[in-house]
């Protein structure tokens, strides 16, 4: 019998999350057939985008006003209604995926394997532990594999597919949290997790106003802006920009760490970047141990010059 994998895809109504294409690649390493499940209130265009991904056989979707900003409980119920057909259920290790996937695993009475960066075989996976200071290879003994995936570890599947599209009925859980509202940070820059260049600032920036120095640099480079926890805690920028063990994991071609000391929790989020540049006035800062290019300097002196010369 052919094994099937079900990807739970994230979207923002008009736009499918770009990491979905990497999930397709991961899924095709674990099963013979790849399906995608979408839930939401306005799915027209995202269903089409999902069906276009090469390697996807079927896109299942449930569209209902009930599924606008769906709770973990609603998403879990919807998945449980279709999961019996699948040997693998996977989603991205984003705050979206991390929220409901363990619920699915618990109700199936199987483990979840978190933050998978590599598929060694259909039941064996590699994942970082201890803030990325160790890599664990683990084998799942369960009949159904439930996984969250770090998209950066997998190539994006190309377009050109033609999946069949199936609507599935709504399932409403008896108990659910209620969505009251959201304050999302406005961001016209590239998505932090997918940007080619990331410019990150830390406590060394000293204030929210001073982050404008990074913005000038990011504008010139077409880069996303990131931050250390200390910068977010101090209120310089939104939590959405935190890079690290407990923030976003990024792996851009070029990462600038500016006024960031290089704590292991920060490194956990960026040390797989291709090229790392550090600017710090303390020559002993641990960030220099992993930087490809280190500039020991006062950031307030060099940032304007850097932005000017780009």
């Amino acid at each position, binding site marked *: 019998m052919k094994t099937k994998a079900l990807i739970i895809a994230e979207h923002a109504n008009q736009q499918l999350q770009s990491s979905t294409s990497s999930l397709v690649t991961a899924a095709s390493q674990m099963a013979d057939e790849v399906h995608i499940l979408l839930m939401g209130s306005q799915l027209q265009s995202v269903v089409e985008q999902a069906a276009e991904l090469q390697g996807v056989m079927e896109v299942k979707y449930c569209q209902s006003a009930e599924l606008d900003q769906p709770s973990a409980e609603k998403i879990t119920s919807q998945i449980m209604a279709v999961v019996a057909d699948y040997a693998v259920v996977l989603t991205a290790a984003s*705050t979206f995926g991390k929220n409901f996937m363990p619920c699915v695993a618990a109700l*199936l009475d199987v483990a979840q394997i978190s933050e998978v960066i590599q598929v060694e075989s259909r039941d064996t996976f590699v994942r970082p*532990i201890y803030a990325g200071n160790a890599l664990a290879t683990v084998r799942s003994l369960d009949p159904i594999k439930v996984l969250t995936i770090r998209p950066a570890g997998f190539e994006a599947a190309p377009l050109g597919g033609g999946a069949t599209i199936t609507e599935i009925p709504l399932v409403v859980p008896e108990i659910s949290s209620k969505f009251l509202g959201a304050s999302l940070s406005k961001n016209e820059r590239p998505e932090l997790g997918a940007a080619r260049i990331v410019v990150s600032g830390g406590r060394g920036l000293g204030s929210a106003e001073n982050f404008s120095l990074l913005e000038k640099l990011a504008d010139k480079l077409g880069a996303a802006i990131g931050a250390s926890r200390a910068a977010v805690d101090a209120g310089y920028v939104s939590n959405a920009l935190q890079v690290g063990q407990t923030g976003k994991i990024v792996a851009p071609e070029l990462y600038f760490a500016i006024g960031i000391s290089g704590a292991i929790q920060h490194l956990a989020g960026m040390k797989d970047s291709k090229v790392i540049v550090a600017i710090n006035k303390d020559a002993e800062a641990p960030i220099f141990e992993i*930087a490809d290019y280190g500039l020991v300097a006062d950031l307030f002196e060099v940032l304007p010059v*850097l932005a000017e010369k780009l």
Partner: protein
Amino acid sequence: MMHECQKIPGFSLKNRLNGYNDSEVRKQVKMKILVPVKRTLDAYVKVRLQSDGSGVDLNGLKMAMNPFCEIALEEAIRLREAGHATEVVAVTVGTEKTQEQLRGAMALGADRSIHVLTDTDDLEPLNIAKLLYAVMQNEQPQLVFLGKQSIDGDNNQTGQMLAALAGVPQATFASKVVVNGDSIEVNREVDGGVETLSLSLPAVVTVDLRLNEPRYAKLPDIMKAKKKIISQISGDELGVTLKQHIESIKVVEPPARKAGIKVASVDELLDKLRNEIKVL
């Protein structure tokens, strides 16, 4: 690979805790908060691996309460101090050594604690969640506060699993919790910013870094904590059978980055980026 469909439990997300929805019962008992805490390697100690790839070597290294659990505990204590809760109960699952963290939790302000004794500290989140669910059934708390993630396994699972097993609503990654009688309002840190949910009680909340700044234990409180109660119970006594779902094959160091260089000026930096590695 095959799997038997009948193994999948008939799923309906409904409150599986008897008596909880009886509003009479709820009026009588003042709010109790259960806080599962985990013993982990101190956040600022570098992890060491066994040379044979069998796992991490914690021998002699400084252990501590998982930082997210400290935040969960702090929030529970603040709610009690603000008069919203009457009792804060810390619980840990692990070997005898983990009692150190329960003493620490009581020094910080937990009223009492429960030690679910196991013969290893290397437990899977699903097994921990099942044990915590059994404790939850005994204790009938209105709120369970957990850390969003343990900094050793980086699993980010236990709270969500517990909520699903108990059939109660959850809010993960909390950065603000407001109690309004029978319900709570929680701000959650999500990838795009912050979102707000309302949850009826009982509920499970997992906490994020910016919820609060945990206090330090004062010496008199450390002394007082020695007199507080730790009740010990085993998995068997809780009626939970643990099952292995994951086999560890190896644990290795991540590939090292090759050593970089220092540049003397912005011009030199730009020259390297443009002409040497051509990323710009």
